[in-house]
């Protein structure tokens, strides 16, 4: 039985400020509902067509929900908890269990074959493995994370998915950027899926709900600004960065994007993103802060719009 999600009153007030009354009612309702059983076919090992056949033979009803992304699938059956992870197809690395919203950062970054890519906060590896699939194990991905426990999960997931173009490093993200800058190593693409308060993940993590507090958001916002600043310094001219979080907090989203736009001025531009889900534009005002108008190009993904988790994506291009 699913535990009822009970967000803290302060969080509820904040969401009411972010959403209209009608939207808030939909939001409040959907966070109590279980998430869809979403999986991503690992095209490094099997084609979506082959996987679909295998899974349907198990009696699973498969729906491919996004045009142009046949690897994204929903298992429509009601499955016992953990069943997706116990199947032999999962153990053999034919698919990755990944929430729909979490697939959007790599789609936005759209890595190309033979590019040099940095995944700065890579664990557990869902987006790293997705990018490796997108470029068919070509180029090089440096997948970094800071804690050994997280690295173990990352390494295990990349191995299961047959990812062979990746170097896993263990370093504080800000420190790694500084070191790479000194060595003048620059990247075509950087994914900064930043550590965040996880407000968008309440449907899957009751713990997030319990741990939520406004002070953490402030300290995370500081860290996120340092990470994005460091990442820009090691981007090639014409290189691109995707900044994403799984939170709704403007302090961790538009405020960080606004910071980057002010810090790097005419050296960067923010890009419009085409994603296969309903997105809302970034907000330009929050509490007493006004953000650069261009933050509207960011994508806010709300659970009530797509029956997914909540997410935020912004994409930048380095001009000079």
């Amino acid at each position, binding site marked *: 039985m699913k535990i009822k999600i009970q967000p803290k009153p302060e969080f509820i007030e904040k969401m009411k400020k972010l959403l209209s009354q009608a939207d808030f009612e939909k939001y409040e309702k959907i966070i109590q509902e279980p998430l869809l059983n979403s999986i991503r076919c690992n095209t490094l090992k099997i084609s979506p067509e082959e996987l679909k056949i*295998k899974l349907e033979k198990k009696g699973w009803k498969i729906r491919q929900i996004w045009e142009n992304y046949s690897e994204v699938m929903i298992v429509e059956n009601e499955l016992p908890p953990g069943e997706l992870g116990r199947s032999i197809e999962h153990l053999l690395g034919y698919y990755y269990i990944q929430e729909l919203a979490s697939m959007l950062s790599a789609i936005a970054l759209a890595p190309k074959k033979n590019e040099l890519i940095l995944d700065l906060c890579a664990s557990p590896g869902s987006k790293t493995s997705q990018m490796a699939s997108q470029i068919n194990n070509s180029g090089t991905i440096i997948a970094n994370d800071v804690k050994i426990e997280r690295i173990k999960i990352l390494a295990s997931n990349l191995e299961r998915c047959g990812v062979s173009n990746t170097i896993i490093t263990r370093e504080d993200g800000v420190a790694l950027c500084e070191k790479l800058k000194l060595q003048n190593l620059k990247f075509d693409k950087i994914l900064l899926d930043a550590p965040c308060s996880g407000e968008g993940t309440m449907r899957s993590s009751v713990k997030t709900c319990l741990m939520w507090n406004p002070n953490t958001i402030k300290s995370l916002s500081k860290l996120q600004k340092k990470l994005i600043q460091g990442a820009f310094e090691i981007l090639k001219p014409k290189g691109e960065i995707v900044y994403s979080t799984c939170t709704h907090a403007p302090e961790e989203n538009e405020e960080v994007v606004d910071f980057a736009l002010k810090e790097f001025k005419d050296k960067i531009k923010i890009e419009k993103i085409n994603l296969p889900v309903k997105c809302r534009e970034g907000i330009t005002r929050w509490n007493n802060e006004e953000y650069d108008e261009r933050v509207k190009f960011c994508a806010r993904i709300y659970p009530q719009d797509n029956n997914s988790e909540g997410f935020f994506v912004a994409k930048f291009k380095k001009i000079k």
Partner: protein
Amino acid sequence: MIHILPNQETQEILSKLKEQFGIQKIAGKLIKIGKERIFLFNGDFSDEQIKNLEKITFIEKIGIYIGAIFPPTGEIRLSIEGTQIFKDQITKNIFEIDNEQSKIWMQGEELNIQTGLRGIIAIKYKDNFLGCGKASENKIGNFIPKSRRLRSKNIIK
């Protein structure tokens, strides 16, 4: 310690893979971490770039674990991914198992069957390669790591 294998050592590994499984070529760099574990890296970072990166940060892993040198005999024991990567090249020492046996195998248990083969063999069920086992007279020893084992008797269709 990361050791990017020079050409000679790569050829030695290839020669063993050829002898054991009929594998003719390796696309990418081979890397050893520790004495036995072999990794395949096919990113396009050069050896020098890897060494430079190692100077400034801690590299936990490069590429994918494809197998290990089996100490008693010096044979190469390919991992699940190793057999999958070379699936189109493996022509020798393959043993095909049936549905029921595949369930037992993926649960990490040895198979009590006579294969007519000896030593390290690749295990296959339909179009799925399931890693390697060690064949002796009446059984195949299992190397499926705990994290990859099937906990219920699901069926590969």
